[in-house]
């Protein structure tokens, strides 16, 4: 009733404040010029090849190998980031200990450190004479740098903060009631964490996993130094795009780019559905 009266007096609610036209106009102009028109070019360009040649360009063995490596290594890195990210989020939200604030701040390092710097330093660390590479080679005979394993290591650095930062707010807002109730009902600590705390964290964990994965799939700067870029073995998909561009094969470059985007959106969409199902199950 009051809302109706207010609407009669002030006109429609959206006109209560000035500036909708200007702000939305600026927003749409900015979005259109910088994002929408260029992405439209990406969506249109590949079809210049025709469906058949586009298909052939995508199933070229070294293109397929690169796509497999980019998506596989991103998946491995995001999976590794789940338990480690949960652990880090748990300790920085639940415990007070010396160095907690530094730990909390340093988790954002991969967001703030330029990717080329991360790539260079990870390569130095994991090379055969590096601080980590030397012991790994000597004790286990593992070589990480210039191998697919190096790609996974770089992508872990990229993906891990996304899991921590997605889970952390949920963990912080988690009310102690549920845990206390479980305790009162005779649950052990392990049971409480496993059956009460973790299920609440799953949707946020999936979000973090998805964000980390999406970022890792397209990552370039942190990877190309440590990957070694051996054809068919450690060449990532973004590198193939760069090579195709250098050969002025714009349509194939755009085709690979479009395929990467479509594939990662499909994966994110599937994760989104899974998450919704989980949330519904909890409600």
């Amino acid at each position, binding site marked *: 009733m009051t809302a109706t009266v207010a609407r009669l007096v002030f006109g429609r609610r959206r006109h209560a*404040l000035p*500036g909708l036209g200007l702000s939305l106009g*600026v927003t749409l102009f900015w979005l259109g010029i910088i994002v929408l028109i260029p992405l439209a070019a990406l969506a249109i360009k590949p079809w210049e090849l025709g469906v058949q040649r586009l298909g052939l360009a995508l199933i070229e063995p070294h293109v397929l190998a690169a796509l497999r490596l980019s998506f596989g290594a991103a998946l491995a890195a995001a999976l590794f980031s789940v338990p480690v990210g949960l652990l880090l989020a748990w300790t920085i939200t639940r415990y007070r200990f010396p160095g907690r604030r530094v730990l909390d701040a340093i988790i954002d390092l991969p967001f703030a450190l*330029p990717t080329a*710097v991360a790539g260079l330093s990870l390569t130095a660390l994991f090379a055969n004479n590096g601080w980590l590479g030397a012991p790994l080679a000597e004790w286990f005979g593992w070589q990480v740098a210039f191998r697919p394993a190096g790609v996974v290591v770089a992508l872990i650095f990229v993906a891990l903060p*996304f899991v921590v930062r997605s889970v952390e707010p949920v963990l912080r807002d988690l009310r102690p009631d549920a845990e206390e109730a479980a305790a009162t009902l005779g649950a052990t600590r392990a049971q*409480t964490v496993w059956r009460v705390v973790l299920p609440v964290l799953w949707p946020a964990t999936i979000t973090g996993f998805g964000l980390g994965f999406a970022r890792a799939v397209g990552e370039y700067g942190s990877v190309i130094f440590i990957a070694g870029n051996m054809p068919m073995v450690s060449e990532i998909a973004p*590198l193939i*795009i760069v090579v195709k561009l250098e050969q002025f094969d714009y349509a194939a470059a755009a085709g690979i*780019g479009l395929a990467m985007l479509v594939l990662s959106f499909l994966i994110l969409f599937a994760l989104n559905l899974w998450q919704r199902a989980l949330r519904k199950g909890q409600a």
Partner: protein
Amino acid sequence: MSSLGQRADEDSVLVRWGLVAASLALAVVIFLLPLAAVFTEALRRGVAPALSAILEEDAQAAMGLTLLVAAIAVPVNTVGGLAAAWAIAKFDFAGKRLLITLIELPFSVSPVISGLVYVLLFGAQGYFGPWLRAHDIQIIFALPGLVLATIFVTFPFVARTLVPLMQEQGRGEEEAAATLGAGGWQIFRRITLPNVRWALISGVLLCNARAMGEFGAVSVVSGHIRGQTNTLPLHVEILYNEYMFVGAFAVASLLALLGLVTLAAKALLEAFAGRRVRAAA
């Protein structure tokens, strides 16, 4: 209740310290060692070679270009982000969810693709390539291309720090001012801007850090002309590929410092504002 043993709503001291130790160890290996490696490698032969690599002519040109690109890209995205946040938080309109998704889209696009899209438009064989050549305008392999690619990759930073905060703050104060006769700019300058200032500064800082550190997107549109279209991160790559490791790591440590200063400033701003700002994601 707890007299017989461990309560189920808190962890034992052993578990607690075990988890803390594991977290610290992981953080050292994953985050601190890479950071330490940059500075160690840069200073491997002492301070003088590192300094001369930074002060050398091409490095200085790269630094100037990086500053110039950021000085254009960051204000553009700040104005756009403010406009978007104002429209989204202060008004109701159809398609708002879609608009937010589109604004965040650049975060899920590979940096290489972010550069590629502009080559498709403005490159020699791009859609506008022939027209640009006829009019003697160069975008790709020149400053405009670097700026466009940088605007693309840093596009969502300011908008995404402001939108949730401004939505949370609602429109009450602005509407009260409007009822009292304040004009649009007056409301924006006197009420909205002071309310979001810490978040705005955080967003701008993160946007700037990414703008100055971007590698993949600018690598695609740069053409790598030394002293002309080389930004600082691209200069690092060139030095590295020429086996000038000390120089590469010296310039890299400059960029690492930029990252560290950004992180520290962000932590300080969060302490001021009393709320967290998400760095990315």
